[in-house]
């Protein structure tokens, strides 16, 4: 079976455009059986409803692959209220680095499913997995008079070992003839983590497990101000604080116990993280509307009580082409410092620390993203296609200065290259 391209070519085929027009002309002719033209009757019946369908493919170089179709339906009411629902499904397959170090000899490990895997010497140990996730989101937006708008949302998602239930609320007010928008909101999530095969005790060999589900509660507050400076320039500042409490450890991640003299991994112990984390971030963003094009720039500062600090710079430029087509290149630079308890390995001769992780996402990290979006129409159809592709290069802190022995000959966090492509389609019905 050969698959066709998912509905896009560099230029719309003239043949198809003409056939489409001819077909429409034919179908708009009233037939003997009907008083109303077929297509317009169907289209006019509910112009205020919109359905978006998007399918996402995500792949990390020989690691994770994700396929995620999303459907979002929105209903707009005459009084400005809107209701929307979104259903998303993820299918994830692949392998994720377990956190253990590569060794000069073959290592063996067990996975969450109890299966034993052998790892070729020198390769980064990883755990194969397959997972499905289903999520449902609902949102209700209501204007209160001309100034205040409230938004209320609910969220539920479930996967094999994780469940998330949450609510969010937001109120925004438009002041000074809509030149200033102030937004305040918050959210609460009640999540459960129930690892496959039970929850391992932290910093143990993983044989001791608890069968109980672990709770994780997340409270989030945000405050934002957005100001229209000139007819073309808008500037926003958003601050947010998030409190996490409960089971914040990654149950499948491990840390290598290392012989301090040879540097060879001796064994592995499980990940263990503090049970509270407070995250604070500030985002300054700006959009400038040129004669035709729009430029976006944003800077984000983030810190948390685990010792991670990060800086993000994001630039986008939207260039309008003929019709409603546009192209939007995108560049993003992200740099973070490591968490206080991040380590590439624990010495097997010393007493273990209270908390430790080798999860690369909590280590020192630099990410560069290059991408572009392209929106286009097919024929005279008002429906819009949107194609987005991104290349992400992520580099960790390769060989830490404390590396000794054989481990220094391996790149402990080699650069990961990721390519994401998203094709979206939206239409009215």
């Amino acid at each position, binding site marked *: 079976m050969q698959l066709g391209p998912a509905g896009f070519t560099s230029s719309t085929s003239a043949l198809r455009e003409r056939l489409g027009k*001819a077909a429409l002309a034919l179908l708009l002719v009233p037939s003997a059986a009907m008083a109303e033209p*077929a297509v317009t009757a169907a289209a006019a019946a509910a112009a205020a409803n919109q359905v978006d369908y998007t399918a996402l493919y995500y792949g990390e170089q020989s690691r994770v692959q994700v396929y995620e179709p999303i459907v979002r339906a929105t209903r707009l009411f005459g009084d400005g209220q809107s209701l929307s629902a979104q259903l998303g499904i993820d299918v994830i397959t692949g392998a994720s680095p377990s956190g253990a170090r590569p060794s000069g000899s073959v290592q063996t490990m067990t996975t969450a499913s109890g299966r034993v895997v052998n790892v070729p010497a020198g390769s980064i140990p990883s755990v194969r997995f397959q997972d499905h996730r289903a999520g449902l989101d609902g949102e209700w937006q209501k204007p209160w008079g001309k100034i205040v708008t409230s938004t209320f949302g609910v969220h539920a998602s479930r996967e094999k070992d994780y469940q998330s239930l949450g609510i969010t609320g937001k109120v925004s007010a438009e002041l000074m003839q809509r030149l200033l928008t102030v937004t305040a909101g918050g959210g609460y999530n009640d999540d459960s983590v129930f690892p496959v095969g039970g929850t391992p005790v932290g910093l143990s060999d993983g044989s001791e497990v608890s069968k109980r589900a672990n709770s994780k509660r997340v409270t989030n507050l945000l405050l934002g101000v957005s100001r229209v400076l000139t007819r073309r320039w808008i500037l926003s500042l958003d601050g947010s604080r998030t409190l996490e409490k409960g089971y914040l450890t990654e149950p499948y991640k491990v840390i290598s116990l290392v012989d301090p003299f040879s540097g060879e991994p001796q064994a592995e112990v499980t990940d263990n993280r503090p049970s509270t984390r407070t995250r604070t971030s500030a985002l300054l963003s700006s959009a400038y509307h040129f004669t035709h094009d729009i430029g976006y720039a944003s800077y984000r500062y983030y810190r948390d009580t685990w010792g991670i600090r990060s800086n993000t710079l994001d630039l986008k430029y939207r260039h309008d082409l003929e019709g409603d087509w546009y192209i939007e290149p995108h560049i993003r630079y992200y740099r973070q410092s490591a968490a206080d308890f991040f380590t590439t390995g624990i010495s097997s001769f010393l007493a273990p620390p209270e908390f430790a992780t080798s999860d690369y996402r909590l280590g020192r990290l630099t990410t560069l993203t290059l991408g572009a979006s392209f929106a286009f129409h097919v024929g005279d159809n008002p429906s819009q296609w949107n194609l987005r592709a991104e290349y992400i290069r992520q580099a960790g802190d390769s060989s830490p200065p404390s590396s000794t022995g054989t481990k220094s000959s391996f790149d402990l966090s080699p650069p990961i290259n990721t390519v994401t492509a998203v094709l979206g389609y939206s239409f009215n019905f």
Partner: protein
Amino acid sequence: MARAIHPAASPPRRGPALDRIEDYFAGRFEAMASPCTVLVDGDDRDEAAALVEIAAREALRIERKFSRYRTDNLIHEINHANGRPVEVDEETAQLISYAATCWEMSAGLFDITSGVLRRVWKFDGGSRVPGQKAVEACLERVGWGRVTWQDRTLSMPAGMEIDLGGIGKEYAVDRVAGLLAAQTARSFLVNFGGDLFAGGLRRGHRTWGVGIDDPGRTGQAALYRLDVARAGLATSGDSRRYVQWRGQRLGHILNPKTGWPVAGAPRSVTVVARTCLEAGTISTLAYLQGPEARIFLEQQGVQFWIL
């Protein structure tokens, strides 16, 4: 041929039959020499029955009006005019104009006058092919370029015939879909012999699952499943009507220039487009390209599957 996945088969009956399958209704009837199915999402049996009735009536109207096998319609009059000009109604005129556009866009490969060739070709799965003399004799009576078509009036040399069967079924699907959409907010699916239109997402954001038959094993297994919400879908291929010749399998779609079946074409081409008519035309045009079908489809910017 594409067909909707549904488990049960209904007993043969006169008139539309209506079955409850899971959480939708399936109405079935015969029209245009094809099994026709109309699926209606929801729990309201009366409404579903009424919609299936509307669909069956419209399908039979179109069949009566455009079938070349009847003697009481305009097509018969056109085909037996012996060179006299025939004026046609608006609907027929639009259908003929659409066919003329297809002829023009396909550089003459799509031709509603090529039906004459079926007098000498028998696609019964056997191995008999007509003699070259017989094919050439037929070709003298084929060619839209010999037809005068303007102001809703058609003049054609005596002995020539038109056959709108190549687009009639897809046209009927879209017509019926338009009628149903004007009647109900429910999601539905119209499938006439494998050419279909899905009218919107079902309850619970679900799509309609459409299986694509493996052309080698027609009717046995839905091997591939397409999930569609709102789209037209059509398949062209040789899964049911073909002739075996010198180890080659020749499908029933004829090249009006050579008088022979299209050689080297894929077994089946499935196309998804905004309407069933568009999907059907593109899949037929692709099939007519023979070995170039894939390249042709890639240029059209449509979703397609080649088996």
